[in-house]
């Protein structure tokens, strides 16, 4: 089973895992990105995810296909939720099944890292004080110079 999607409904981990491994698989790994309640010393009450539909679906499918080729499995499910999320909500789910555990960990790690570099999704953090801010998006607006590095870690989602 090979499935990637941008979704707006809550992600249900049990549904993702059901039927994912084939009989040749000895490992089935689930990674969840979860909204946490703090970032850089501020209390976070939630996240708003914005997406470039079309490009995001294509990019997510391409990343999963790359992982499939590199690590030799087509038992991959990758979901990214968009819209308004609260603390504790699952934003990202990556499930991989492989014959042995090594490839499952490597494929899962590959997918999350590539997703963070390339997937056209943005998040705005909502804070306890009532204000909000785009993560990674504000500081580069006035900067002239080389292309911004979209890989920087940031924000209270994974």
């Amino acid at each position: 089973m090979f499935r990637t999607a941008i979704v707006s409904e809550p992600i249900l981990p049990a549904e993702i895992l059901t039927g994912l491994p084939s009989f040749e698989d000895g490992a089935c790994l689930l990674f969840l990105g979860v909204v946490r309640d703090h970032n850089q010393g501020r209390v976070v009450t939630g996240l708003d995810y914005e997406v470039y539909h079309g490009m995001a679906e294509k990019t997510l499918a391409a990343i999963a296909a790359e992982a499939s080729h590199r690590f030799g499995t087509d038992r991959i499910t990758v979901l990214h939720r968009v819209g308004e999320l609260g603390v504790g909500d699952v934003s990202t789910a990556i499930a991989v099944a492989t014959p042995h555990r090594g490839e499952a960990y490597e494929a899962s790690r590959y997918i999350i890292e590539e997703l963070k570099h390339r997937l056209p999704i943005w998040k705005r953090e909502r804070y306890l004080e009532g204000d909000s801010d785009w993560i990674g998006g504000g500081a580069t607006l006035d900067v002239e110079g080389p292309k911004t590095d979209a890989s920087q870690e940031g924000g209270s989602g994974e």
Partner: protein
Amino acid sequence: MKIRALFFASYRDLLGTGEIALPLPEGTTVSGMVAELRGRGGAFGKLPAYPVVAVNEEYAAEDRLLRDGDVVAFIPPVAGG
């Protein structure tokens, strides 16, 4: 030729719009389009000189030649996950 420009997240907030159409001379590249927008001044002048862009839903280099009907998306630093 006519190009559609899309602005997401912080860029949309900066410009107050998520999409504009702009006429450009044939032979304009991505960087030429960026220069045209920045030359408008005001909020447009605050766009970065070398933004990450996608042309027709694929990341594109600044010297990419634009064609009539292309959709150019301005991609602020992404923050998925």
